[in-house]
């Protein structure tokens, strides 16, 4: 056995062990049902499930204004993200798409009407007078402009398989107790171009702002009477900052903060607190967790049955090489799932279908190689030579065939980027990954196995290679090349 094969064999064993390790990483905190993280060398490697498998809603929002700058879109995305986080939805994703769209993904949320109301509200920024009430950052308060805010409902024990759709708990409840704080200045009258950051002469960072119209006069009136008292900046009924009035504010002013981070926080609230444009729901998809978990179960069964069927076929048809291909196939499956966890790739139903299909493709190369080896053996070549020739001669067709499938999956991936057909993307991704990986497992790993087995010199019975014992070379098939 050559050193190169021994080295490769060691590499294969190591890679397989690594894949098993990654796949077997235990839950980070088994006591906490909501903790989905599984840490491997400090990296979260839990299997990500798409909304169609875990249940949830995906919403495509489109700006109703025809012209929207990429800056405005990013502002809107940031605002929506903060609102979604405020709803207490775990692992929500908010991302921009194209030049006027935002995609919102809400796992485990099946009735998105409440969430949508919050997401699409234009965002209410208010300067309020807390009076004698103690208010702190992040607190939800009632204001005279918006006396019935919604607050997230107390966290429930996470979605379980038994939870049915009709019993979905409301995401939030209405706050009806507590003082109503009078509004001093309404954010809709804030002059957004005046909101700027700076550093004053003493080195303290500040945010400058200016109100127009009635808000400017009421701010001036209020501040002149309340010097030394607090005033709160409230966004969507959530206290963002509490500032002490130092002087009369003539409709404009500066909020001085202790740190640059604090200042930038306030700047973002003032500048981007409200959505720059309104958004319409262009498309939405929601799947109940019940259907999602049913899909997971059925694809698991399909995957196992598919894998077994292919493995048995290979074993029966190609015998010893088939057995080695089956081991390579098992390693292929292990590495695939490890990669899904590490990269990470979010698994969707179509993605799993792509993976299951790739099991069939993964042994395609083996079928081509083993058929070639059988050809060479029938021509009377010695085993070791036949194995080498089998691989060499099968390679051009393996390369060309896989290249064509890879090209198609790249095209699928590219066209799957548009929202309406995004289901294609997951399929293309797992299929493409499967093709690349199977080239490694079916060609490199199987060849190493086969060479090692041949090198032992023990497995020479033609039956093991599915060749009839002492079969003469068929005269009709010409030799492929001279020996």
């Amino acid at each position, binding site marked *: 056995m050559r050193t190169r094969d021994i080295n490769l064999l060691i590499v294969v064993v190591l890679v397989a062990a690594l894949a098993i390790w990654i796949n077997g990483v235990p839950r980070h905190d088994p006591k906490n049902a909501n903790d989905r993280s599984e840490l491997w060398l400090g990296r979260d490697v839990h299997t990500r499930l798409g909304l169609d498998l875990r249940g949830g809603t995906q919403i495509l929002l489109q700006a109703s204004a025809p012209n929207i700058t990429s800056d405005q879109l990013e502002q809107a995305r940031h605002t929506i993200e903060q609102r979604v986080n405020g709803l207490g939805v775990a692992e929500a994703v908010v991302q921009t798409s194209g030049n006027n769209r935002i995609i919102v993904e809400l796992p485990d949320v099946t*009735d*998105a*009407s409440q969430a949508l109301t919050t997401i699409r509200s234009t965002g209410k920024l208010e300067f309020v007078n807390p009076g004698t009430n103690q208010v702190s950052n992040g607190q939800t308060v009632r204001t005279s402009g918006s006396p019935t805010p919604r607050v997230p409902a107390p966290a429930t024990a996470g979605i379980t398989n038994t939870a*049915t*759709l*009709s019993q979905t708990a409301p995401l939030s409840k209405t706050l009806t107790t507590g003082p109503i704080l009078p509004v001093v200045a309404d954010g809709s009258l804030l002059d957004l171009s005046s909101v700027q950051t700076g550093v004053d002469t003493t080195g303290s960072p500040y945010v400058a702002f200016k109100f127009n119209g009635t808000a400017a006069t009421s701010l001036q009136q209020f501040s002149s009477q309340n010097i030394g008292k607090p005033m709160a900046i409230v966004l969507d009924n959530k206290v963002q900052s509490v500032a002490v009035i130092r002087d009369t504010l003539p409709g404009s002013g500066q909020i001085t903060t202790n740190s640059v981070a604090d200042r930038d926080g306030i700047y973002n609230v003032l500048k981007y607190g409200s959505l720059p444009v309104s958004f319409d*729901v*262009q*498309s*939405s*998809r*929601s*799947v*109940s967790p*019940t*259907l999602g978990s049913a*899909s997971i179960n*059925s*694809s698991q*069964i*399909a*995957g196992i*049955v*598919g*894998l077994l*069927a*292919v493995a048995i076929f*290979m074993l029966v048809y190609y015998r010893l090489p088939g057995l080695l291909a089956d081991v390579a196939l098992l390693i292929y499956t292990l590495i695939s799932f490890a990669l899904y966890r590490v990269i990470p790739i979010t698994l969707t*139903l*179509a993605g799993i279908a792509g993976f*299951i*299909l790739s099991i*069939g493709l993964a*042994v*395609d190369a083996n*079928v*081509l190689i083993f*058929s070639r080896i059988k*050809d060479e053996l029938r021509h009377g070549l010695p085993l070791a030579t036949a194995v080498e020739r089998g691989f060499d001669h099968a390679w051009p*067709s393996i390369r060309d*065939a896989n*290249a*064509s*499938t890879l090209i*198609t999956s790249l*095209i*699928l991936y590219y*066209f799957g980027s*548009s*929202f*309406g*057909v995004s*289901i*294609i993307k997951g*399929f293309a991704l797992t*299929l493409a990954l499967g093709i690349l990986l199977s080239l490694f497992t079916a060609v490199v790993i199987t060849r190493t196995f086969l060479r090692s087995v041949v090198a032992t010199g023990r497995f020479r019975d033609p039956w093991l290679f599915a060749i009839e014992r002492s079969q003469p070379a068929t005269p009709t*098939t*010409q030799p*492929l*090349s001279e020996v």
Partner: protein
Amino acid sequence: MLSIVNKRYLFFGLSLLIIIPGLISLVLFGLRAGIDFTGGTAWELVLPNQTQPAAAEDVQRIFNSQNFAGNVTVQVSPPNAQKQVLVSVRTPVVKDVETKRGPLLKALQAKYPQASIASLDTVGATVSSESRNQAILAVLAASAAILLYMTIAFRKATHPVRYGVTALMAMLHDVLVVLGIASIFGKLFGLEVDALFLTALLTVISFSVHDTIVVYDRVRENQIHRRTNQSFEEIVNLSIVQTLARSINTQLTALLTLLALSLFGGRTIRDFVLILMIGLISGTYSSIFNAAQLLVVWENGWGRDWRRVFGHKELHTSTAKVY
């Protein structure tokens, strides 16, 4: 040796036998496009503990009571093993469909107490027309890329473009088979053409070429090692016979996994898997019985080949000995 190339027109005829009814259906009825491409809303409802299929009219009435402007179509399945009746409803796009969800579920549960909404998809007009354009572009781009790759991969063969074009013709065969059957199934069983269908179609395209390449590769190789008295027709026949087992085996492994998916993979992707299976079988057929044979027809000259096979019987028997 098994002679496949000699019977080429029989195999072409068999292909036409499948394709022509599909084409007729395509012309008459077209494809039943799903909401991904037309826009609209799809509701998948689950009614548990039912021993009989629910009346479509009842569900229709409930939807009508919620004021969906336009056409509401309802499809009801017979109860499955878990005594669940699955109902799929299509409604036109309405603004803020999410707000209709609650009232509709309430109305539904008044009639079927444990009814639930398994999934709710809404696709707006802009998105659906984008998807439609993307779908057409994707199929064209995939075809062009494969033609280009084939021409490059077979650049050392005698006529590289022939390999690309005939592979494309075999691919077109599979596309037509799939589209035709999809059209017939759409008419008969309400099969819908959606994003997953597009995925299946593009996968069929790539697998079709995958298979053709295995045969063509053998042709290329056998041509290099050809004996002096061997005609191109014989080379192609030899190549097909040599690769027959592996062509079938590679597809068999893919079909085994697809069969597992169709039996256990859940209803959401059943149509997708069905289309893939049809396409794969068609792909294997076309790569064995059409693709390489087209190379022979091209080599002999399109009209001449026809006359050679179907021309004067006496002449045919005498020439048969020559090549």
